[in-house]
């Protein structure tokens, strides 16, 4: 089936269309297929659907239009890069909605309305013990750390340990320090 329209416009829009497929796939699968599991599975599902859309549009362009094979590869690389970058941004948005402290504090403040919350009330809603406990639970659940006799030890290094190393290196490169408290 040929997708009608200006090929150059379609080429430019295909990663955006694929993002739409990604988001729809992620939200729908979270509601219907991955109800009680971490949101990551739905993100992977949505990403795969969007990637299929990118490949489908490029294949359609090549098979129905006048593209050379080299143009197909060039277009595919650009489209997949663009789609990958947009998917990365969406992944972070989803991550913010699930794990970010600022967003959690903001949502607590929104519920409090015009009266706001004192520092003590904020901490009572969402304090250090909650923050540490939630994260230990996630890291234990994914095997990144393990617990033995009440103490925590390193588990699987992939991917969080390597992400931590990369982030610390980037902080040194960009900010000249390893921590916001240095």
């Amino acid at each position, binding site marked *: 089936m040929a997708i009608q329209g200006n090929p150059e416009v379609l*080429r*430019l829009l295909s990663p955006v269309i694929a993002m739409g497929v990604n988001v729809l796939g992620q939200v729908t699968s979270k*509601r219907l297929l991955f109800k*009680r599991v971490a*949101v990551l599975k*739905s993100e992977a599902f949505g990403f795969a659907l969007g990637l299929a859309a990118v490949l489908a549009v490029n294949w359609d362009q090549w098979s129905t239009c006048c593209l050379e094979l080299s143009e197909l590869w*060039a277009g595919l*690389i*650009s489209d997949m*890069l*663009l789609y990958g*970058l*947009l998917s990365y*941004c969406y992944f*972070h948005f989803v991550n*913010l*909605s699930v*794990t970010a*402290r*600022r*967003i*959690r*504090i*903001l*949502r607590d*403040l*929104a519920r*409090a*309305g*015009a*009266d*706001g*919350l*004192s*520092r003590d009330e*904020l901490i009572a809603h*969402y304090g*250090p*013990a909650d*923050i*540490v406990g939630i*994260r*230990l639970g996630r*890291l234990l659940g994914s095997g990144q*750390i393990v617990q*033995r006799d009440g*103490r*925590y*030890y*390193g588990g699987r*290094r992939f991917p*969080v*340990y390597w*992400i*931590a190393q990369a982030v610390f290196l*980037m902080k040194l490169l*960009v900010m*000249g320090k390893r921590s*916001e*408290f240095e």
Partner: protein
Amino acid sequence: MAGLAIALGLFSFAFAIHLIVWRSGLPGRQTRTLLFLFGTVLAGGLFFFSVRPQVLDSIGLYAIGPWEAAQAAAIYIALMLAYITTYSALEVDSPSLVIVHAVFGAGETGISREEFERTMSAEVLIDPRIKDLIRDGMAKLENGRVVITPKGMRIARIFDVYRRISAIEGEGG
């Protein structure tokens, strides 16, 4: 591929300026400064390549047309957004990454939960984030209480709606 090459070249140039500026002194509003810096390089770069196509000729690329310029802009903007998204992980210390770093660093000794809670206090985990919200205009201090602003309410609603649509359970955080 000309669009991709131009986007990568401009992004590398913007990133180099970003490193120089940041090493000279951290700006107050870091994300806003990043958007301004990267946006200026994009606008300047596209303008330059449109009025000086012989520069492209001299480095082995042909002069780009409007669709290739649009492609270069799209890839550059996506790179910029991806970097600024990543930057939030550089700006603040992620508790998860700090925990993983500490646990692996402790080796065979391991770490207890009490040790985490001793070092990861409200002064480290909560106060700086409240300050960030106030600095970014999403909350304000009124009579010793933290109150959400209209801007903060809009942001909170976006995430509330998304969490409801995606049926994400729990309070988050």
